[in-house]
């Protein structure tokens, strides 16, 4: 009995005493949303800092949120939590924040744009009435296609961020 209690207590102490060795902080590059969302932006790795208004926090898990520029609703980026952050509190919505983390790139090429267009058309076919949303979505796809065509890389980079820390401004 005593032995098993001692064993349990020792395991708990071992667990809480194993502090991770602190890594030296990387240099943090301060960027604007406009820079990251520009078609010419190229991410070279490392930690970046972004500022923006929290437009939405996922109410179910709190694991993702959008920050953006309140003066331009198109300028927004999705932020995900990492091991350092358990979740984003819902009351961050409407607050200006600074977020530090790493960027993750998704490549949007012509194949992606065509597939998106097909999906939107298929959805419209299924719905009974012609919606303004359909027209807006199609305009966005056309715009995306044009940007892909004009891009020397042959694709558009869409970035999301994995946040390691954030603070209210």
């Amino acid at each position, binding site marked *: 009995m005593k032995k098993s209690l001692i064993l349990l207590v020792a395991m708990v102490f071992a667990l809480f005493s194993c502090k991770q060795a602190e890594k030296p902080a990387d240099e943090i590059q301060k960027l604007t949303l406009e820079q990251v969302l520009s078609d010419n932006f190229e991410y070279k790795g490392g930690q970046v800092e972004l500022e923006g208004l929290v437009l939405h926090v996922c109410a179910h898990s709190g694991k993702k949120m959008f920050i953006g520029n309140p003066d331009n*609703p198109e300028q927004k980026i999705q932020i995900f939590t990492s091991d350092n952050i358990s979740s984003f509190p819902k009351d961050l919505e409407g607050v200006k924040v600074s977020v530090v983390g790493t960027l993750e790139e998704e490549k949007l090429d012509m194949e992606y744009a065509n597939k998106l267009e097909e999906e939107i058309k298929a959805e419209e076919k299924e719905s009974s009435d012609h919606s303004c949303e359909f027209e807006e979505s199609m305009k966005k796809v056309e715009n995306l296609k044009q940007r892909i065509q004009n891009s020397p890389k042959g694709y558009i980079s869409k970035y999301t961020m994995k946040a390691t820390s954030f603070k209210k401004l």
Partner: protein
Amino acid sequence: MNLYKLNRTLHRDLGYFFIGMTLIYAISGIAINHIKDWNPNYIIRKEAFQLNEILSHNQIDQQKVSEILRSINVDSYKSHYFPKSNILKIFIDGGSVTCELNTGYCEIETIKRRPLFYHLNKMHYNPGIIWTYFSDFYCVALAFLAISGLFIIKGKNGLKWRGAILGIIGVIIPILILLLYL
């Protein structure tokens, strides 16, 4: 050393030690299992109201936003922006107000943390590295509890009859569900 006695002692003590963890995962497990039916973390309420006038994007300034909030007795303005040219979103403490400017239709959404569940679910969603270690420890202990439980009782109520039958049924059910429904 009597292995049966050691097994019983460890099974009992780990069972006591992990009562809290088991309840956290059991209660939040049910809450998160039904995530399609409810929001397990927040109580969200929506209420509609109508603006007295039809406004355009250009007419909205800080003063107009304050007027809208005053008309619904809200004084906790945080910020506002236009997700679309005809949609105004005002962030307030504990929620937001969204207005369709071309119709004047507005909705106030209030969000409150669901008592108890918010924190239990936060633990369930693996909130950090210390919790990862502790919950790994719990998972290993849970596996030990399952296996050690087989050897607690000897005889026909143990693995020779009752334990074996119930144990086999308990393994067959998830396999059948996996094969037939998933």
